[in-house]
């Protein structure tokens, strides 16, 4: 029965509906031991729903799951884990007040004579983190970790139960390039150990690099399963979106507008010696490893965690925001990287989320639907960005990540700031939506806005920006002109290549 070729996991004819939405219809796929099986599809194609069914979070309306040929059904996540399934969910779900070690062993705590064995727990957690080459402290409070570190802990948690089937739903979305490549190494090692890996990702290069077979979902149905070699990125994208994507990165503009933002010797507790210029019509990319201070730079300019040293000018005027509200009032907008924690009011409707900034600055006693906050205008904006949802008055938590991000973009487009700071604008977003967001970014620049784009996704930062500013350990260590290679940027980001003594050194010098 358990010959090498028989699948470790089969999902057969799975269907699942939510009120008003058919998320999955008759989807089948199988994963063999030692195989990495990628699941691809646009935002909302049903990938996470399929994975949640496998993890015992949702019950399918129809279909069958087989583990090593045996029919299985899971009423609870614990039953899925007992069947040897480890899942890294797209939504991070750590208990913020527990330690890293406690989170990792959660639900399978080691005990001695019925009492929690803390030493064993911490040792076990440390060992798993070491396998991930992560230096996260096992006693740290989970809530204090960065998004990338939390993601690492989630991965460790899934590995803790030594699963024979490992499901990874966009595990690299929050990771920087070097962390992501370490994760891919780990997946290769797991494959050698005959683990069956189901891998969901929007990063095409990853899929090509790691997977053996690909299954493509579209609108809740399976399009096909094929060997990865037979699926060059072009074909894969065509299967996913149902058409050719003419251009992924939009052509750069030629506009050389005046200086919009000037930062002189800016610094605070996390970053220092920041000198930066953003012109109108320009997309300035900010690259760097996790923890290099990219996000701190964005927050300082926006006014959320202000600079304590140095000066800024916006439009030639002195600009010293003390709060995000100050920043917005002066004409700056910010899309945070941690969408769930900082961007979305999850229980409120799409429309309410899209109108949030308008309402922050409207008269308190005005009608909530006055002027541009009216349903008609809001719906128009949402449709213009191709936001897909059953109803625009549904709570936004029901949406897929890409659609959520578009709603936040709609929020800022309504305010139309002079300078828009995008932090990780396409984290967890499908190829088609990525292309759409790049087009929006470029369009804003062409209309004379200045764009600062923080990104850990190297192809993106190199492909979209007119210039890339590279950060390392809280400082700007260099700058690359458009057309620089990913290697150039990476060399600066890891602290080689640029001379730290002379900030903003040109690329490769």
């Amino acid at each position, binding site marked *: 029965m358990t010959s090498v070729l028989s699948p470790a996991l089969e999902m057969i004819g799975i269907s699942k509906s939510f009120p008003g939405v058919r998320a999955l219809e008759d989807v089948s796929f199988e994963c063999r031991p030692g195989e990495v099986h990628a699941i691809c599809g646009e935002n909302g194609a049903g990938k996470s729903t399929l994975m949640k069914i496998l993890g015992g979070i949702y019950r399918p309306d129809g279909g069958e799951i087989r583990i090593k040929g045996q029919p299985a059904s899971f009423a609870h996540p614990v039953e899925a884990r007992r069947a040897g399934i480890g899942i890294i969910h797209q939504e991070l779900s750590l208990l913020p007040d527990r330690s890293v070690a406690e989170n990792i062993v959660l639900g399978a705590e080691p005990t001695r004579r019925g009492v929690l064995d803390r030493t064993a727990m911490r040792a076990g957690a440390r060992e798993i983190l070491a396998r991930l080459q992560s230096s996260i402290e096992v006693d740290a409070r989970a809530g204090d970790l960065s998004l990338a570190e939390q993601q690492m802990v989630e991965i460790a948690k899934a590995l803790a139960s030594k699963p024979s089937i490992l499901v990874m739903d966009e595990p690299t979305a929050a990771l920087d390039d070097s962390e992501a490549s370490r994760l891919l190494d780990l997946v290769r090692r797991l494959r050698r150990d005959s683990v069956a890996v189901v891998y969901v990702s929007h990063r095409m290069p990853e899929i090509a690099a790691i997977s053996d077979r690909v299954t493509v979902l*579209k609108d809740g149905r399976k399009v096909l399963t094929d060997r990865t070699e037979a699926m060059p990125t072009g074909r894969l994208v065509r299967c996913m979106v149902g058409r050719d994507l003419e251009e992924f990165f939009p052509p750069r503009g030629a506009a050389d507008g005046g200086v919009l933002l000037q930062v002189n010797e800016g610094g605070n507790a996390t970053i220092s010696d920041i000198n930066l210029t953003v012109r109108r019509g320009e997309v300035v990319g900010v690259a760097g490893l996790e923890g290099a201070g990219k996000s701190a730079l964005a927050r300082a300019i926006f006014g959320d965690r202000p600079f304590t040293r140095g000066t800024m000018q916006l439009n030639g005027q002195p600009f010293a925001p003390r709060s995000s509200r100050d920043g917005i009032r002066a004409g700056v907008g*910010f899309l945070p990287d941690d969408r769930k924690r*900082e961007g979305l009011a999850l*229980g409120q409707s799409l429309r309410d989320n899209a109108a949030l900034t308008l309402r922050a600055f409207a008269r308190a006693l005005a009608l909530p639907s006055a002027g541009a906050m009216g349903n008609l205008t809001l719906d128009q904006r949402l449709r213009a960005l191709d936001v897909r949802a059953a109803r625009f008055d549904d709570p936004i938590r029901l949406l897929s990540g890409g659609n959520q991000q578009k709603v936040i973009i709609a929020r800022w487009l309504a305010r139309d700031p002079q300078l828009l700071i995008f932090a990780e604008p396409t984290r967890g977003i499908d190829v088609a939506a990525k292309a759409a967001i790049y087009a929006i970014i470029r369009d804003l620049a062409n209309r004379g806005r200045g764009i600062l784009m923080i990104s850990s996704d190297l192809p993106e930062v190199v492909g979209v920006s007119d210039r890339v500013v590279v950060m390392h350990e809280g400082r700007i260590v260099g700058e690359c002109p458009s057309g620089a290679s990913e290697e150039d940027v990476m060399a600066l980001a890891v602290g080689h290549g640029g001379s730290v003594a002379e900030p903003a050194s040109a690329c490769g010098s």
Partner: protein
Amino acid sequence: MTIALPDTALHRRAGSLTRHINSGVVIFLVLFAAVALKQPSYIEPAGFMNFLRRAAPLGVLAAGQVFVLVSGGFDLSVGSLITLSVLGASMITGGDPSLTGAAIAALYGIGVAVGLINGIAVAFLKVPSIIATLGTLLSVNGVAMMWSGGSPRGYLPDNFRAFGRFVFRDVPLVGQLPLSVIVLAIVAVLAWWGLHGTVFGRRVFAVGDNPRAAELAGIRVDLTRISAFVISALSAVTAGIMLGGFGGVSTDVGQGLELQAIAACVIGGAQLMGGRGSITGVVFGALSLFALFTLLNLLGLPQALRDTAQGLILISAVASGAYRQRTGG
């Protein structure tokens, strides 16, 4: 990407029906039917109006409390503020009807002050609202005791008590119409407008749902929270003025009302961690709770048992709220 089911229209209708029928309304209808079975006079206009009259202060209180709940906090100080309002009114007027206007103005002034203190402690000093308003509860109680010398003194002039007891007679359709029911209606309409009809109301929802996202979108989270506490305090003073007309001056008029108000909100579908609630819901939640007390009374249960029942109801209401939240229904 979503695929509309063939029967989407049907689904939608069913969905929006269940979404728009509030739990508070359903619970109220069930409980009131039980009350009416036990004591048919309650469905006569006079009986029903009298029921509404006595439930009105709780309705007013819940309509204010829900602002704080939706903004993500609790206001436990309202009960003691009611006590302070009643005792304060008797101290200020000393029974002199010509001082009623001044007394009411002073009470609202006190209300604003208490609301500001709660709000500032929560918004600027970052004290969790449960602790902050528990502190205010104790302080306000202390002030009430000091002011009145520890025992209820004086009495309230009749024109002050009118808000609780005056009844318009010979009104078409309903026969009689208590002033307090009119006050409840006005407060409900004002609160509905504030929470559902203004930009401010939407900010309260956003702040309760995710204060960090609200802040990054430019909302003044602190001012929004403070306003919610002031609104709650003003509703408490209003409820206090109404209750002053019900019974005499006593030192325990407001006792326990903060929990009743919160329970009423939860029965009406408000969510304890913020971001969800409606005025229609909480007003019916208050009527439900009052119908339940009436029922327990009609069944002849002693006070101690009623208190126990109230505690259990609070817990089960909150638990079912948490369940609804988890299942997304």
